[in-house]
């Protein structure tokens, strides 16, 4: 039952993250939302690996999540650098995206 509970929490976090990336405007918030989405996905994977007290833990999702964590932090750092740099280049303000705005 523990596992199922955390699967549900993970999926709610994932939905929240997707909502945040689409709706929030500031790139820093988008990065936070992406990290929450990632945490949600990881939580689903790890929660299902733990099938309860009697059973062994499935180590494969654990390894996947470790990989995912490192990927997430490096992409986040790159995103932050890009955000700071685009902030610097005020000459081309980020609002001037002539084509479609909206999601993303």
């Amino acid at each position, binding site marked *: 039952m523990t*596992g*199922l509970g955390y*699967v*549900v929490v*993970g*999926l*709610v976090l*994932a*939905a*929240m993250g*997707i*909502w945040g990336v*689409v*709706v929030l405007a500031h790139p820093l918030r988008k990065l936070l939302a992406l990290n929450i989405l990632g945490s949600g996905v990881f939580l*689903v994977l790890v929660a*299902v*690996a733990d*099938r309860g007290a009697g*059973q*062994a*833990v*499935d*180590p*494969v*999702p*654990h*390894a*996947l999540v*470790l*990989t995912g*964590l*490192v*990927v997430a*932090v*490096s*992409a986040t*750092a*790159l995103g*932050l*650098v*890009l955000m*700071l*740099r685009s*902030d*610097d280049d005020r000459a081309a303000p980020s609002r001037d995206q002539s084509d479609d705005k909206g999601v993303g």
Partner: protein
Amino acid sequence: MKRRHHSLEGWLALLAGLLALGLVAAGVLAYQADSPGLQDLVVRSLAQTRVDNPVTAVLLDFRGYDTLLEMGVLLLAWLTASTLSGPSHERLVRPSARLESPVDGSVDRMLARLLLAPLLLVAAYLLWRGTDAPGGALQAGAVVAAAAVAWQLGSGAESSVTVRRGYWLAPAALGVFLLAGVAVAVVTGTFLNHPQFAAREVMMAIEVATAASVAYILAALFACVLNAGGNGK
């Protein structure tokens, strides 16, 4: 105008709610399938790997290829971030991180230095024990990076030398991984198939290089973010 914003937000929130419901429903249904997972297969194959910690076995042996590509992701993030965060947008295969401490004060400094030794010890322990107990290259690297970040906060300019001198550490993990993979392919005929007689040594080499690269790159990425925002307002 304002009202339109609100109605749009309402629609998006509704959509997100539906998405959450769908996801949760799918999750519950999927969980009920009660699939066995791969743990039995891992346990059965563990004996052939000379590693006792199943997670380390998956990371470095069964799915070592994932970890190899992951080192590529780290390298990519570092390459771009360090290029962009340089003083001018110049070549930056060697990042020249101009580190300023955002926190000034001797207490922080003391604290950072006090933290350093135990953190490094923890990292060494994690790396050493990682083959048998929880821990391993990624965690050890992350802890060293955290220690380096604490040190950077505490000590300011000196660390820029370390960041610049150590740039070759960034591609080290990918390089060692590839070399080891090709070397064992020549011996065993299969890429990344560690031969029985040297499995532990090969894996140890990969682990040390991975820890070093992860530590260096994560610490350097922090320096890049500091640097990119360095002339902040």
